[in-house]
């Protein structure tokens, strides 16, 4: 297992290197002048040159690349021309917010989507199945921003059941001591249940917005995977031997159906890794998506590069974790070893 991990690590390094190279050179092709934005309205040519000099944009591109890589290897992803802050630090501060939202959104999508998909597969062509498919279609076709705005309008503005979209906590609330960066976890660790409840209440609407949309692919994949399993020969064997329908569903069906479902969960979680920009903007969520968006608007190259690299790294880690989950679910998969005939 350790050899396998080692090999994956090596491959990851190559992948990351590839990401860095591609991102670096693509960013330099983007039109736009960050120096002009930073210089503002009282700019002059000398001022622009000065700014470019200061941020290293006037060196020849290969030199810039070498300097960038030298710094990146030590964890220094450069300086944001927009805020003047360290990109690495700024990303790390915002990452937990996006990850926490991603986690709960995916959790909701799975908790809601998996049972619906199973029910649809078990009761094929009944009203349950049809309803599940309608929900899946709705989720696929719904735009995040519309759903987010509608939910806040209904549940905050009209009903007042949930707090307003001001961020992760109420404006005057002190966040908990940072241990994991997840407010829900950190508040619980500090024993502050009120704070934890508040964090959840602010997570609710954005997580539901994203979760609903993400549940659509989950429902579809669970349904088709379960159908495939339920039609399989080994399920027929189990039924032939007197195993009751319900037990067949959960003991035989579920675990086997999990494999494509795990892939789907990995994909949607990966999709959320970079932060969902639209949801973060609507709910004023202080995540990396918003950071990348602001950086993109003003051509803040170092911030954008840093963002892509960090998200790429996270994606690689996610894939390794998913592979381990596979090997745990499916005994046919032994990581790194050949299957014994």
């Amino acid at each position, binding site marked *: 297992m350790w050899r396998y991990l080692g090999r994956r690590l090596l491959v990851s390094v190559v992948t990351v290197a590839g990401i860095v190279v591609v991102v670096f050179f693509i960013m330099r092709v983007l039109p736009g002048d960050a120096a002009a934005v930073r*210089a503002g*309205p009282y700019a002059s040519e000398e001022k622009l040159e000065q700014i470019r000099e200061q941020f290293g944009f006037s060196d020849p591109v290969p030199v810039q690349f070498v300097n960038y890589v030298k710094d990146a290897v030590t964890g220094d992803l450069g300086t944001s021309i927009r805020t003047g*802050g360290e990109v690495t630090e700024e990303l790390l501060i915002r990452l937990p917010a996006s990850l926490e939202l991603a986690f709960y959104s995916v959790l909701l999508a799975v908790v809601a989507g998996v049972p619906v998909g199973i029910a649809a597969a078990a009761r094929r062509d009944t009203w349950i199945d049809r309803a599940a498919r309608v929900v899946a279609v709705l989720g696929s076709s719904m735009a995040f921003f519309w759903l987010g705005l509608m939910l806040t*309008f209904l549940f905050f*503005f009209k009903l007042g059941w949930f707090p307003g979209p001001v961020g992760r906590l109420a404006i005057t609330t002190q966040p908990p001591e940072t241990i994991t960066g997840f407010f829900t976890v950190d508040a619980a660790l500090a024993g502050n249940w009120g704070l934890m409840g508040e964090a959840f209440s602010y997570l609710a609407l954005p997580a539901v917005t994203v979760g609903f949309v993400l549940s659509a692919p989950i429902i579809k994949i669970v349904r088709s995977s379960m159908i495939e399993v339920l039609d399989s020969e080994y399920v027929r064997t189990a039924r032939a031997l007197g195993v009751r329908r319900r037990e067949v569903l959960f003991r035989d069906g579920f675990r086997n159906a999990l494999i494509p479902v795990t892939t789907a969960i990995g994909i949607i979680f990966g999709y959320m890794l970079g932060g969902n920009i639209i949801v973060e903007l609507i709910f004023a969520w202080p995540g990396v998506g918003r*950071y990348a968006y602001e950086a993109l608007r*003003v051509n803040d190259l170092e911030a954008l590069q840093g963002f892509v690299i960090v998200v790429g790294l996270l994606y690689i880690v996610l894939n390794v974790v998913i592979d381990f989950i596979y090997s745990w679910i499916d005994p046919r998969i032994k990581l790194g070893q050949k299957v014994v005939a």
Partner: protein
Amino acid sequence: MKNIRPRLLQRRKIAILLALALLVAACGGDEEEPAATTAAPTATTAAAQEATATTAAEEMDEEIEEEAPTTTAAEAMDEEMEEEEATTTTGAEMIFEKPVIVASLADTPNLIELHTFRTTSAYAVTNAVYEPLIKQVLEEQPNGLLQGSFVDHHGAGAESFEILETDAGGFLATFNIRQGQTFPDGTPVTASDYKYVFDRSIEGPGYIGLLLPFVGIAGTDQIRVIDEYTLEVETTVQSPLFRRFLTFQVFGAMNQAEADANATEDDPWAFAYYNDKGGGSGPYHVTRFDPDNEVVLEPNPGYWNAGTLPNAGVIIRPIPDANEKARLIAAGEIDVATGIPPRLLAVLADDPNVTIWASQTTGVHYLAMNQTIAPLDNVHVRKAIVNAVPYQALIDNVMYGFASPAGGVVTSNMETHDSSIGGQFRQDLDAARAHLEQSGVEDLTLLLGVRESRLGDQEAAVLIQDALRQIGVTVDVQILPDGDFSGRINANELPLFIHDWFSWGEDPFYQMRFLTTCGQFVNYARFCDEAYDALVREGTFTTDPAVRQDVSSQAQQIFLDQAVWAPLWSSDRTAVTHKCVSGVVQDYTRIPVFTQMSKIPGC
């Protein structure tokens, strides 16, 4: 940047107790502007009281914890308040907690270094943190707005000042720096701190140095420290802008000791250090700065006028989506919002829970025509375009009435605006067609660039496109990210584009100089006329109102004749507050000011 997690609640308690203590102390004292004599004792009592308040608060905290260790913070504070009421022995009957103002501004604060260009909300932060030598006298308007006077100024960081004319044709200003005021860390503010900030403006890498020659300051030798609390500023010309400049936050005192301690060889003025920190002696200091997310301003106990601050601090929380921002303010979750688009303002106007503050400004939104790109070098083509633009429709349908006609680079609300000239900027499609014919240009297609961040500009572009189509000119509208837009206009790649400008100080010659004189970087239309430049130069350094008017009118005529821009509109500065919020201020810079804001009790 985030290593210290301030105990906001703890500090709130201290601030509130301190404010209460000061209120109690000031009770029966002079209600008008504090004079120099009371400043020193106020400051020392403030410091002493802060010390006692701290320990008192800590003691109370311990008491509270012993009594009921599971109460929440809010409950603890309520208990505290009750204890306060019980133990107060002075005559003050009404003890109320000063409110914390929650603000959501037009954009996200990106950095708060004083001499680097930053977003509007970042300017609001530095406005609260740095204290200039003098400030505008605030005059209350019938609707409750506190308008800064263009004529009367009072001492701020300086307790008194005198401006005399010199024989060399300039000004000599002497300032007596208020004693007893301190930076948040307790360091006293002296004349050297003011000299430091002027020097930094002139010699540092910031952009402010460009502005000072306007008022006749070119070298650091013109700023002189006479003694610890006396500062002299000498100018080489007598500009009417001199006083106005002195009110700007960018010339507020900076903690020289702190700056020097954090300067490096590459960065001798400590620009990097102040990216995320405030360094001023103003009414507030920054206790938490999370760019894009939150800024917390708490009262600076060393501020010379701390006693009159009607709020306990400000939390600035950007809300990126304008619809959500409008909902939040209608729901009372935020107290002040700026940057709400006119379309939503029109909707909010019907809501009894909010107040909309709209005041005219001298800013200008304009359609520029780059004269280096053919056929825009042909004055008849430009006149055709200028006559085709549907000015009133833009004000009604894009700005929903929250704008005035611009009428030129010297806008209709600006001093020396000549309405006989400005009034000629109106839509006349027949005249437009005639000009186009006269130009001899046929089948004209032009690219019109607008910024992605400016929805109003985008909507205007569509209306302009339609109007030009009616005279036979095809316009392709391109929405560009801000960085791209800036790069392209600098490189003369956009024939038509919509841009805007607002001059701090609202002076017509300042505005004309930067936007329309030869060779200026931000003269994106690349207009150049010797006679025009001469007029602007003359007006800049004259204080005679009759001369200024005459010169300005002549320049405006040239501007019209040359069809330099289609001046689209002059935006109102708008702010929305919850109905219970009072104390909205409007000064030269039109940047949000929090020092007078409070909430009507019992509202």
